[in-house]
């Protein structure tokens, strides 16, 4: 039998918070359990059948004061724990300026990650220590869950949608990555490693990777392969919306509504083009739902985000 795990590294800022919360809730519930055990065992011994203990009626004050007392106390304690650990920490952290955005695609049964400069990995993720990381994750098939116990992080990865995890690694080393949402036959084989490196080592590591392309470059290639330019290029015969500077601009929709062209909008526009039709254009674009894979869509979106106004493709 190999080594016996008795502790888990605290490898992120979140890990410290979670362990802190865990400690206090453990202490509070341990105290409650201890008091109850003492009372139950004490009563059991003192009032066992045949013991000489006094067994008269309860004192009058005992009844309602006690009940109302512990009801109120329990309510306050519950609200207190909620306020202390959830109300403040339940919402995701704010984005840091030097945030590192890594794209993660999950599929049965592997993790594919891609760094901003195009470095690709399978079942592995290298990140520099001390820098905030934002994982943008999507699934190609069923629901998976990105679980890194050492970071105390977990987030389900859904098909047709992207979910995010924002965290800051604080410790160097190699840590486990699991899939925590049951995803089929080889669910328990869907594992990986997260390598936290010094920033210098990360910079040195990046170029040595099986360097695919940057996500945006890959998106550019896909743009050409799918023939998007046939309609979207400035000189095209077909009238289609211009894509330069589209990201984060406000798009007027047919019917008068308007929408901000964020990641979700771009993704929907590729997969379900007739869902939100830009004002002044005909709904003629075909859906790329069955054509572009989840990672293709991520690449296309990354490419669209790089296009400046006027800098048309």
């Amino acid at each position, binding site marked *: *039998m*190999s*080594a016996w*795990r008795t502790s*888990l590294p605290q490898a992120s800022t*979140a890990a410290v918070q*979670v362990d802190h*919360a*865990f400690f206090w809730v453990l202490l509070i*519930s341990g105290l*409650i*359990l201890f008091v*109850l055990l003492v*009372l*139950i065992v004490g*009563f*059991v011994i003192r*009032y*066992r059948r*045949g013991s000489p203990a006094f*067994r*008269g*009626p*309860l004192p009058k004050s005992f009844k309602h004061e006690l*009940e109302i007392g*512990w*009801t109120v106390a329990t*309510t306050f304690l*519950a609200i207190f724990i*909620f306020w202390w*650990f*959830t109300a403040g*920490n*339940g919402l995701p952290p704010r984005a840091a300026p030097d945030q590192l955005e890594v794209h993660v695609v999950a599929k049965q049964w592997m993790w594919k990650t891609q760094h901003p400069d195009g470095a690709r990995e399978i079942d592995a993720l290298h990140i520099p220590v001390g820098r905030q990381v934002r994982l943008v994750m999507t699934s190609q098939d*069923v*629901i998976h*869950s990105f*679980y890194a*116990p*050492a970071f*105390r*992080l*977990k*987030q*389900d990865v*859904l*098909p*047709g949608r992207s979910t995010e995890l924002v965290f800051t690694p604080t410790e160097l080393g190699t840590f486990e990555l*699991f*899939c*925590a949402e*049951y*995803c*089929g*036959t080889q*669910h*328990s084989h869907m594992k990986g490693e997260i390598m936290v490196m010094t920033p210098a080592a990360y910079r040195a590591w990046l170029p040595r990777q099986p360097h695919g392309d940057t996500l945006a470059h890959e998106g550019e290639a896909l743009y050409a392969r799918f023939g998007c330019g046939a309609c979207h290029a400035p000189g095209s015969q077909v009238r289609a919306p211009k894509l330069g500077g589209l990201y984060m601009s406000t798009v007027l929709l047919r019917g008068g509504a308007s929408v901000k062209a964020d990641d979700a909008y771009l993704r929907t526009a590729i*997969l379900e083009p007739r*869902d939100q039709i830009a004002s002044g254009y005909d709904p003629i674009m075909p859906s790329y739902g*069955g054509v572009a894979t989840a990672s293709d869509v991520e690449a296309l979106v990354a490419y669209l985000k790089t296009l400046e106004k006027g800098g048309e493709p």
Partner: protein
Amino acid sequence: MSDVAHPAAPDHPATPGSAVPPDYLHDGHTLRSWLFTTDHKRIAILFALSITLFFFIGAIAISVVRLELVTPAGDLVSDDTYNKMFTLHGIVMVWFFLIPSIPATFGNFLLPLMIGAKDLAFPRINVLSWYLYVAGALLTVVTIIAGGVDTGWTFYVPYSTMFSNTAVLTAAMGVFVNGFSSVLTGVNFIATTHVLRAPGMTWFRLPLFVWAMYATSLVMVLATPVLAMTLLLIVVERWFDLPVFDASRGGDPLLFQHLFWFYSHPAVYIMVLPAMGVASELIACFARRRLFGYSFMVYALVAIAVIGFFVWGHHMFVSGQSPYANVVFSFLSFMVAVPSAIKVFNWTATLYRGSIGFDAPMLYAFGFLGLFTIGGLTGLFLATVPIDIHVTDTYFVVAHFHYIMVGGTVSAFFGALHFWWPKITGRLYPETLARIAAVLMFFGFNLTFFPQFVMGYLGMPRRYHVYPPEFQIYHVLSTSGAALLGVAYVMPLFYLIWSFRWGARAGANPWRAKGLEWQAPSPPPRDNFLTPPVVGEPYDYHPPEGPTAAEEQVA
């Protein structure tokens, strides 16, 4: 009236000049007289036999799982078999054992007796409810024969609708059909409690077991249909290929989870509320004490049933649900902890100044109390969003819900079985063996599930066929605990069957308990009572006011 033993009533107190009706066990001996019965007691027995069968099917499935997990490599069974086994365990144990466990057996048997009625309000619907259970159970058996299903008991989409190539349809239909059995039982219980209480049996004189059945029925009636519809939508998507949850066609897989947990969280209360009712009966009887804070206990039961509907989102903190919804559901989950805590405090306070006996049912009740408390307290961890993010979908959650559903409900089920066994069969069980089984069950349970809390916190994900070797020691402990637990479950099977034939005759009220069911003969005849039962204050074990004779002497 002080705590004086009732003279043991004869089995059949014959009134002069009238023939004594046969007890329900001897009221017809043909198979037909059982299969077409409308007697709530016989239907309870039919349910008891069927859920026992399914309990063992579920137990065999989990034995394979636990044996596989003795080693970190996947060496005993293939991953596919492993997945089918834990799925089978979940589906069978949740829907074909735990949900009907106490309500359909003890609820069926005792509810009319406890309120002084001859039967449930709709006896034919009651037997229909058993047939629906059987139909659902048969579909589950068909599922097993067809090679099993590997979706997990939660049937999460899109795995269940588009990716699994196992018998999802029959499994889902089995649960669907079984749902109607729950609904009909619930309708029957609610109507019976409202209209068939004996004269003098006011709402605040009802035993807490009846209140628990009432609250449970509320959940059954209002939550189960949503599950039925959700499973139907899975069938529609899988079989007819119509888009419902499919993300590639505009659907939202999280909608499935919302609808599923809208039922499945309250379903936890379908399992545990009856156990709370049982514990209340046992603790009051064996502490010889009026239940502390009766009315608070009632309010707490109803509050748990109602608030239990508002907390389903705490199963979805990492699912991609909005973080704002997480905060709302976290708050509501903390709120449902309050009535649960009140119940534990009141049971403890009931022991104060009691006269506590240690018969087997009471040992089971103590087991329930301890295990339910641990299960409930670990619920606080899971309601706290940051902690839940780390421990959800790990063995921590597995341990938590087993503490509630097995530690709580199954302990109470066995407590009830021993407590009412004399009423059901007219015989006494062997006390020493029963105490050994009760103690064994408590220790076996803790050995099985406590290590799971630890390994869950250390990052062991659930539903894993192979796992990092550093967790092996915990799995070995867990499996050895499961073996003990298995012995503790099988023991009663043997000595109870033995006592059914050779046990000592019980008399009407061997525990000197105060519920109306003890005024009927053991076993009761078709119409339950030979003479109309006399309704008094509930749990009148100890005088509420005024000193007893002994205390007067002291003064």
